[in-house]
């Protein structure tokens, strides 16, 4: 199977928060879906940004990391295994090795809204 590739656009918007890679904040609980380095003291070898045209939020990692959340079991992120992963209301849709499109769950209603965890 042909390996997918991903080219990072120019002029992306950095979504990291003071260096922390928080993919989503819980609106109700305050819990976070956060990407951490496998060694606690290291800075995660990753980037989290928004594409300028599509507004997709992209997670790009260059070495194994872990996605953590207070209420969900951790998920290992391996750049060599671009598979679909889900942690609660966050879905990581693989685009290429080490690259995931980060999708927040939404519910349908009077207004379409993100699921509040």
């Amino acid at each position, binding site marked *: 199977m042909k390996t997918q590739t991903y080219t990072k656009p120019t002029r992306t918007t950095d979504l990291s928060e003071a260096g922390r890679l928080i993919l989503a904040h819980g609106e109700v609980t305050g819990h976070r879906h956060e990407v951490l380095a496998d060694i606690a003291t290291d800075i995660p070898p990753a980037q989290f940004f928004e594409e300028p045209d*599509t*507004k*997709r939020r992209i997670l790009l990692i260059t070495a194994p990391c872990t996605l953590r*959340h207070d*209420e*969900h*079991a*951790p*998920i290992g992120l391996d750049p060599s295994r671009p*598979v*679909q*992963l*889900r*942690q*609660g209301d966050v*879905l990581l*849709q693989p685009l290429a090795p080490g690259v995931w499109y980060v*999708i927040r*769950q*939404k*519910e*349908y*209603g*009077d*207004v*379409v809204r993100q*699921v509040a965890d």
Partner: protein
Amino acid sequence: MAKKYTLTDEHRAQLTPWADRWIANVLSTAHYTADDPATIRAAVRGLYEAAGLVPPPDQRIVIVPSPTVARFAGGFAAAIWYRRKKGSAATRDATRDATWAATRDATRDATRAATWAATRDATGDATWAATSAATDAATSAATRAATRAATRDATRAATSAATWDATSAATWAATRDAMDAATDAAEKMDWYRIPVRALTRLAHVLFADDASFGLQCASSASNLWDGGNQWSGWVAYLSFFRHVAHLPLDYTKWQHYETLAHYGPRVMHAEFCLVSEHPVVLTVDAQSRPHHDTGPFCRWSDGTALYAVHGVRVPWWIIEYPERLTVAHIDAETNAEVRRVMLDRYGFDRYLTESGAQPLHADACGTLYRVHDALFVRVQNSTPEPDGSCKWYTLPVDDDCRPIRENLSLGEPQALTARNAIASTFGLTGAQYAPLVET
């Protein structure tokens, strides 16, 4: 008349800020200052004089706490003045005569309409959409339309209650309890809190055997109505040319109307003028729709209040006492939008559990339910709680399981399956949804 004005780039840049300023004026909850009563009375006098009318004396230019008071007190006062001058005559003609719109119309013609005509002749309608229409679009649902509907419905309800009562005091006493019960039931479903029953009784006190006349005058007091700050759209447009474009028009009559556009709705009668205070609470959602999750979206200092959730007018008790909601209430609600709000308050998951709703489809991803005309998917958390159990949760999904995309638009319809439903909440089709790891 030759056009005197062409929009400049400098003025064009001020259109949106100008509209925003007037939008804020419509949504104002500011208390009147100590100087405001004098300003209001001077402007009211100016309005009457601009129309060649004798203004009411200052003691009959009254600031009232809410549009509801303006509507009922205005109607009652109009009825009293009519009877004082012409005697008792509870007929349709009498109601019309008592609430004749002459004063309101004359003052408006002399100020707003005259300025409108002069401005239109001089400028064309180029800035109408950017000022008046923009102001109205952003505010009407939460202010003008809501106030009009609530006061109209309340006066109709009161008139209906009074008409149900016979016109004699003896019959009134006999039927009062029955009317109270009926009014209780009706008020429970109202989206506003207006003391209809107390106002109906007041009409009986004021008009004895002719309460219907007073209440019909309150109902017809819309003829005497000027929206004040709720009608800021007009003022946004006309004042743009006065203050930004500096159009060389005579604004000496208009200025009184513009001044009163900073204050609440008013009732204008030949003998009196009532001006409402601003509400103390007025909230809208991001789309400018009337909205408050836990209380009235609009409340005045006298306690009269209006309720809506994302623009849907809902019975007040759903907001104030959501714990009183039952499955029976939800099932009995015929309005789909109100029912969705009820379901949201009650909790989708709790409703599905307690209502015994039958599943439409089930697979490894969860279970899909149809409740009335809405679809819900119920799924279990993959990560166990500390006690080993796994939380259930329920999400509303599109009626055709269409994926909800990043920009909140909807994709193509899918078959009604639980997998498709869950996938749609992530903007995917069922075929695209297959997480290898899920926690």
